[in-house]
């Protein structure tokens, strides 16, 4: 799946800040680290502040600080502030002649949406930070009966 830019920026920011809740970081510092637009990130951080996920600290040495509960806040909680990734139920009704095929495809796509939503609801920021530290994408994987080794 692809997330909108603002959503990705929000996830970068909350994970970066949640990794060390005592630390204050500026939007520019986060933007430089991730190679993204500081202007766009500043807007995203304002939205995160309005949602109570980050606190803005003004003045010299100011910046942003994580204000949420990393054990309770899930990836879905952050994502849904910026976009709706639930199944699209607002599609216009399919033409009668192609109804079965259209409904069949929608059924399969809804299965994917449901899986995606369940995954994002189950991963807290704290779990995500542990996963990042563990780097599971860089270790051996087992795709069924044939083994393969992914290199770091």
């Amino acid at each position, binding site marked *: 799946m692809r997330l909108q830019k603002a959503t990705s920026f929000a996830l970068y920011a909350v994970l970066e800040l949640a990794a060390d809740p005592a630390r204050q970081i500026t939007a520019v510092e986060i933007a430089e680290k991730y190679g993204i637009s500081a202007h766009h990130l500043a807007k995203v951080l304002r939205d995160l502040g309005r949602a109570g996920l980050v606190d803005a600290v003004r003045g010299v040495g100011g910046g942003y600080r994580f204000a949420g509960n990393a054990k309770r806040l899930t990836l879905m909680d952050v994502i849904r502030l910026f976009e709706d990734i639930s199944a699209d139920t607002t599609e216009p009704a399919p033409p009668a002649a192609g109804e079965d095929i259209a409904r069949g495809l929608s059924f399969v796509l809804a299965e994917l949406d449901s899986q995606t939503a*369940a995954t994002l*609801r*189950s*991963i807290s920021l704290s*779990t995500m930070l542990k996963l990042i530290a563990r780097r599971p994408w860089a270790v051996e*994987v087992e*795709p*069924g*009966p044939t083994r393969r080794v992914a290199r770091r």
Partner: protein
Amino acid sequence: MARRTVKAPRTEGDAEMEIRTATAADVPGVIALDEEVTGLLKPDYWQDMFERYGARRRESRFFLVAGAAGRIDGFIIGEVRAWEFGSSPSGWIFAVQVRSRLRVHGLGSRLFAAVCDCFRDAGVDRVRTMVARDNTVIHSFFRSQGMTAGPFIELEMRFD
């Protein structure tokens, strides 16, 4: 029957809580705990579970309980499964329960760590499980232990 206390990381506040292999005397406590959590009384099911996973083939089947002073506050059940659709031997967890008021204090993590120790001792290098898609609590619990999506997909078909 041998009582094996398994090693598992402890957290502050539950130092007196022991995690060990279940015995027949623990079954009523397991039944009561499950009833308290699920609202369903299933004595025959848990008696059968104990006979299958607590009393036989104990080198590859693990029924662990957590408790103190004769009280059961949590349990976890798993077994080593192998070669289902090409899956190499792995630990499989199919039940875990912790008394509601004791949740988020590390007991579930200790039970998970304990059963993983049993799986390692049995010679497997990974653990798998299956959770209901809408059961965010248990899904989040397994995620927090480090579990991620595996290489298999669960499918079902309804008989009409």
